[in-house]
């Protein structure tokens, strides 16, 4: 059980580090689909997301001027939210006893 916890904490810490610190250095070039859409010419058919004005839109926290802080905070929120939702989901799905198939 302890081994299990240690592994989980290590993985979670790595995820936080990547989303909060490393994410600032991510390439801001368009991704594969955006680039293809630009090159071929159908990028204009894209519409703004209905929640493009959301507090966390485009991986930044609205109102935080410092882009390193803004991206980092958005990353932290995303990691914690994903961990919370997915852990609750998977724990509720798991087999409670090993005998049952």
């Amino acid at each position, binding site marked *: 059980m302890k081994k299990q916890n240690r*592994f989980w904490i290590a993985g*979670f810490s790595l995820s936080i580090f990547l*989303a909060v610190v490393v994410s600032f250095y991510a390439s801001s070039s368009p991704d594969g689909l955006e680039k293809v859409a630009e090159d071929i010419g159908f990028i204009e058919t*894209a519409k703004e*997301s209905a929640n493009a004005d959301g507090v966390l839109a*485009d991986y930044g926290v609205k109102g935080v001027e410092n882009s390193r802080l803004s991206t980092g905070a*958005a990353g932290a929120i995303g990691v914690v939210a994903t*961990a919370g939702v997915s852990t609750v989901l998977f724990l509720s799905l798991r087999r409670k006893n090993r005998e049952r198939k």
Partner: protein
Amino acid sequence: MHIPDGFIDIPTSLAFAGVAAAGVAISLKGAKSSLDEKTAPLAGLTATFIFAVQMLNFPVAAGTSGHLLGGALAAILVGPWAATLALTVVLLMQGLLFADGGLSAIGLNVFNMSLIGVWCGYGSFLLLKKLLPKKKTSIAVAAFFAGLLSVPAAAAGFVLQYAIGGTATFSVATVLAAMVSTHVLIGIGEGVISALAVGAVMASRSDLVYGYKGVKQVLEVRSQG
């Protein structure tokens, strides 16, 4: 790879949302029988890690970037059912919280990344595992190629959607050629990250790796005989 609103018309988006919902429903059933006390927390951790790494766009060619999709990686670590669900949670978070991927396009994105990415990645992983020597290191090697293949496959999913309900009128062949060639490059990055991550878990907790179970069973049978 996250499709915004507008690229694909609404009827097509709805149809793919239906297929995606069916895939997720089946995966909920499948995950119930494949997850236990030990693997359920790993499935949550896998979704979390994929969310984090998807933020890390890496440059692939002049003015183009790509990021991990994670379908093959998740399928190898926690099995294809839980992987489908993990990717779906990530896509929902991205669409709902971060406006990454359109809301009307969620079904399209789940179809491409949670269904095609996971199942194509898992299928090619199983095939490679059969072909490669029955060694621990083969799992990471298979993860590389499974990751590599899963990205252009998911990109081809977009082309299918474009062919059915694209709002632009550029030829499907042009879009297919551009999407596949660009995403083979991104696939190399996907393969490297998948192999590193699977390799790290194999080195520390190989007992947790879903895709390694078959190999272990073969070894056990032999040692008994």
